């Protein structure tokens, strides 16, 4: 089933980590195999923030194979040596969990493709996100558990999207969890509710164009599809509109960039979405109770129609 939620504050910042946690926790009955956050925090916008994992969560319910924790340290060392090799200077480093790392790096090249390929050439290492304001945090468990584990409730920013996952198409692990980074674009992330039926055809075509897939989760295709369209010169909104015919299946998905948030709904309107729009806030989720967690007062909401694409700016 899965649940998705997103919000964007226009013209101001707020505690988006706390707000999104409330929204996703309200949707936990739609799936709590894993929960993911894509938070667009207030930063100076100077350095890149890179969230990576050097291993999987092998706790209860995980479908991953347990590894000796010592390999995490070895992978971390290689990551840091590669960063130095590519001229990326580590300004700050955090290790919330043995397998989860956050680096703030000075890196002056704009094209992140080569950079990402180099880092991900290390077996077991995946970049969860790379951007100047985006941070993707995803792990097993419900929204509250992941929020507490990574101290997300204090994150202040302008917008955020998140996902509560019931694993159906692929394993219960971090690599299959949403949100997906729009590799190799800085600050692009995607969450999706639904199933894509032309996944393999699209995946093969995109791989032939040099795009990378880290999981076998069909939702990852949306991130890669949009990223490829943007790489070819399309705007975010154009890429999303093209996806309505390019992607087959049932879906509602959100895409976020550094300064915008968008939603798209398939032409059969098979997946739910409730939307609240005001001058200073847009909030949306698979169910109205997600929005009610941050706006308990009476509000006007609506369901976007089939084949609808909307994009909002901060």
């Amino acid at each position, binding site marked *: 089933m899965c649940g998705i939620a997103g919000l964007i504050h226009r013209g101001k910042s707020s505690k988006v980590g706390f707000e999104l946690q409330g929204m996703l926790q309200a949707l936990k009955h739609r799936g709590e195999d894993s929960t993911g956050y894509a938070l667009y925090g207030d930063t100076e916008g100077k350095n890149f923030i890179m969230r990576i994992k050097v291993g999987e969560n092998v706790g209860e319910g995980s479908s991953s194979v347990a590894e000796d924790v010592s390999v995490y340290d070895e992978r971390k060392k290689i990551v840091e040596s590669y960063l130095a090799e590519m001229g990326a200077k580590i300004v700050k480093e955090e290790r919330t969990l043995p397998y989860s790392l956050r680096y703030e790096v000075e890196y002056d090249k704009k094209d992140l493709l080569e950079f990402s390929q180099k880092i991900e050439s290390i077996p077991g290492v995946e970049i969860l996100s790379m951007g100047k304001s985006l941070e993707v945090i995803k792990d097993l468990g419900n929204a509250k558990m992941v929020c507490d584990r990574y101290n997300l409730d204090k994150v202040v920013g302008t917008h955020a999207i998140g996902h509560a996952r019931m694993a159906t198409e692929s394993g219960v692990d971090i690599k299959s969890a949403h949100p997906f980074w729009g590799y190799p674009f800085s600050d692009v992330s995607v969450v999706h509710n639904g199933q894509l039926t032309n996944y393999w055809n699209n995946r093969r075509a995109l791989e032939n164009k040099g795009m990378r897939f880290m999981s076998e989760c069909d939702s990852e295709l949306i991130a890669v599809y949009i990223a490829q369209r943007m790489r070819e010169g399309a705007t975010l909104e154009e890429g999303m509109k093209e996806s309505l015919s390019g992607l087959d299946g049932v879906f509602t998905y959100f895409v976020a960039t550094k300064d915008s948030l968008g939603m798209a709904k398939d032409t059969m309107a*098979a997946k739910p979405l409730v939307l609240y729009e005001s001058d200073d806030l847009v909030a949306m989720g698979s169910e109205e109770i997600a929005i009610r967690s941050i706006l308990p007062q*009476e509000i006007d909401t609506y*369901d976007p129609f089939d084949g609808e694409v909307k994009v909002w700016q901060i």
Partner: protein
Amino acid sequence: MANLKNTEKKTKAQAMGMHTEVLTGRTQQKFFNPDEAENFYYFGTYDVDFNKRTDLDVKDMTAAEANKKIDGLMSEGYGTIVIKNPQGKHSLGVGILNKLNLIFEGSLGYFGMGSCDGPTVRINGRVGWSCAENLMAGKVVIEKNAGSCFGAAIRGGDLICKGSVGARTGIDMKGGTIIIGGDAGAFTGFMMQRGRIIILGDVGINLGDSMYDGTIFVGGEIGSYGSDAVDAELTKSDQDWLKRKLKVAEIGENFDVSKMKKIVAGKKLWNYDNLEPTEKKGAI
């Protein structure tokens, strides 16, 4: 018991496009006979007084607790219940098989007012997916918008949304009337079998797809017709009924019904029993 094979004695409703099928074979239909009313009894129904009114704040209740509380209030004779702070909760007001005046001061989540028979409900907010699913009788009025599958499989009663509704409105409906003041999404009237849908605004793609019977009236633009949905002539009797219905529904009273489009089933798909496999293909 009505004799549906006797097509010469068509009722006014039949002339308007309802109940035009000649039922044969395994298909059966029974109508309520007033002479047998004393034999009809719903377990768990109560005598309520509409002048006995109370408020119920469900802010800190689960849907099950709230529904049990409503049942409890009906058993005490309350005929008018005002629900405060529904806050988008799912499955509120389901399974009410009673005369009751129920008012929600706020919005409902999914499956609100499902499987009801008899209550008059006003929702001063929005409703989520599958509102009033399986409604048997009564009236449900939504002041704002509604989600998808609005009035799925209803068998009777009036379901009114003053705003816009999502996709698959009236899917599989078997009777009753759905009235939409705004626009409706894709697949409206999908596989409907009887009943009527009125949409004053625009409607999305695949209108009336695979409908078996029933009638859809559209005031605005139609995205596209679904398989086996065809135009029909809007008769004087249709217009009279539309005017009356919109007036009673307190919606679109000044709407020019003479310009509405009437859509019915082409009936090339529905009677599979009488078609050979090759003919079925041709119909599709």
